């Protein structure tokens, strides 16, 4: 399988994630979709790293995973906080700030 296929997959994954962010209203799912986007990027990184035969991509990928974990942590924290506040778990309900 040539690198191109991996790249194609990564692009698709990335876009799927984006779509998810745009369409889903449950913050949990939105977070998941963010994960998807990051993973898409990761795949691309690994693929390129393979293509060039150096490890930079992989390193970046690892960092990305860390980052993803952190974001998840924060995100979930917020969700919990929101839940504690008895606010609806729905990003569309959070629109006090506008205009």
């Amino acid at each position: 399988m040539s690198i191109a296929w991996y790249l194609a997959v990564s692009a698709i994954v990335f876009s799927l994630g984006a779509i998810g962010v745009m369409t889903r209203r449950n913050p949990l799912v939105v977070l998941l979709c963010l994960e998807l986007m990051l993973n898409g990027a990761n795949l691309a990184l690994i693929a390129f790293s393979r293509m060039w035969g150096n490890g930079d991509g992989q390193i970046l990928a690892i960092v990305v995973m860390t980052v993803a974990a952190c974001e998840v942590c924060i995100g979930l924290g917020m969700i919990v906080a929101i839940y504690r506040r008895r606010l609806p778990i729905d990003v569309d309900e959070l629109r006090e700030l506008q205009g």
Partner: protein
Amino acid sequence: MTTLLATAHLKGPHIDFAGLSPLIALLGGSVLVLILGLLGSRWIRAQAVPTLSLGVLGAALGLTIWQWNAQKSIVSGALRIDDLALVLNLVLIAGGACTVLLAWRSLAAREAAHGEFHALLLSSIAGMSLLACAQNTVALFVGLELLSIPLYVLCATELRREHSLESGLKYLIVGSVGSATLLYGLAMIYGATGTTDFSGIAQALSSGSLATDPLTLAGVALCVAGLCFKASVAPFHQWTPDVYEGAPTPVTAFMAVTTKVAALGVFLRFFDVALISTQVSWGPAVAALAAITIVVGNVGALSQSSLKRMLAYSSVAQAGYMLAGVVVSTQLGVKATVFYLAVYLFMNMAAFSVIVARERETDRGDSIQGLAGLGRERPLLAWPMTISMLALAGIPATAGFMGKFYLIDAAVSGGYTWLGVVIVIGSMISLGYYLPVIAAMWMREAPASEDEPQALASPGPSPVPVLAGGSTELDEELAPETSSPQPEVLLVAVLAGAATIFFGIVPQPLFNLVHGVGSGFGLF
């Protein structure tokens, strides 16, 4: 850090701790602050922690100055310490210090048990300074995240305020999308060039047809998007007003200033160093974005009733101005941008500190009408606000004028005269919302009785949690704060205002400061 020390002696690269020292100071400091915040008593948390964090910032400042006009790449080319980095560090640290002062008594700090609050603050600053001197994409990305993640938290710290949480979540979601975009862009550039070092990228791009390769260009596009997001450039600005308004005011002040600094710093480095050979293709695009940003920001700020929101839009506009310096990608442009960043710090700090003070004094929060009669009651607050408004509008004898002057100068001599014109048109529009603020302070009398919120168009968010009943002990914990004089806030306001005027009349020192910032680049 322990690991760092551990690995240092085995076959790791030579690490220039001197060069790294400010960063180390910040990171270590944040840990210290964190720990200090944990050991108990209220007094320590409320007073010692901020003091300590100030100390940390002071240390970092000292180290930065110690490093002055060093020119080196450290940690095997991950970072570059040069004038740009150092100057930006200065600005960042100053901004951080102001924030600490503003947050001294703030609700947010208490809510987030001071230690954590300041630790997050410091680490975010660390991320920024990392970003400012990042030299390869990995460091760039890490720095970006180290900047953002604490901010996500900080925005949400006033958990009792729904707005705060909301802003936090929004920031998180949209921000993550932004960084994912950036990441993908980085990935593509890596794919195109096969390296993560800026210098390597520049080298690779400068050779052959790679500069016009779709892969590269798409990567650049995604990077533009991602960074524009951080710098809140239209059309990626949308999170800005909501987050700024929702976040606790000290945090807003912090974000307003420092994220701009970091984002534009990395803009300068990444685009004017790594991607310089694709400038022909991204120059016009970024210029267009800048123009859009200027217009959108200024237009959006009109007829806002909340000061913070208004300032948020205005910061969007300012970002547009500063982009102009990036676009031209000349030494002059770099200098102008950095100069404006420095000036921007003073202007915004003055404004935000006044807002902080007002929020604690009145229940009218940050609404513009809330400022009515301020000139008569609290001239010491009114003057800094006035100065900062005039400066943001770019009136002569204020630093803002100098900044605009320099930017337009750069734009024109870079061949982007039309952008310069857009800048002035933007500041024309901006008069439409800066002047009313001054008018409110000096030309309107305070409404006779405070207890008539319906007299106001929109009472701003109140520091005391109105929803989900703040408990009684919390309230009496708040009670002494609300009416207490705030020497540190006043200090910040007056200092910033004074600096704005001073650098408006005697800008030469600032010019000398930023003189060398472009020297690191291969620009003419």
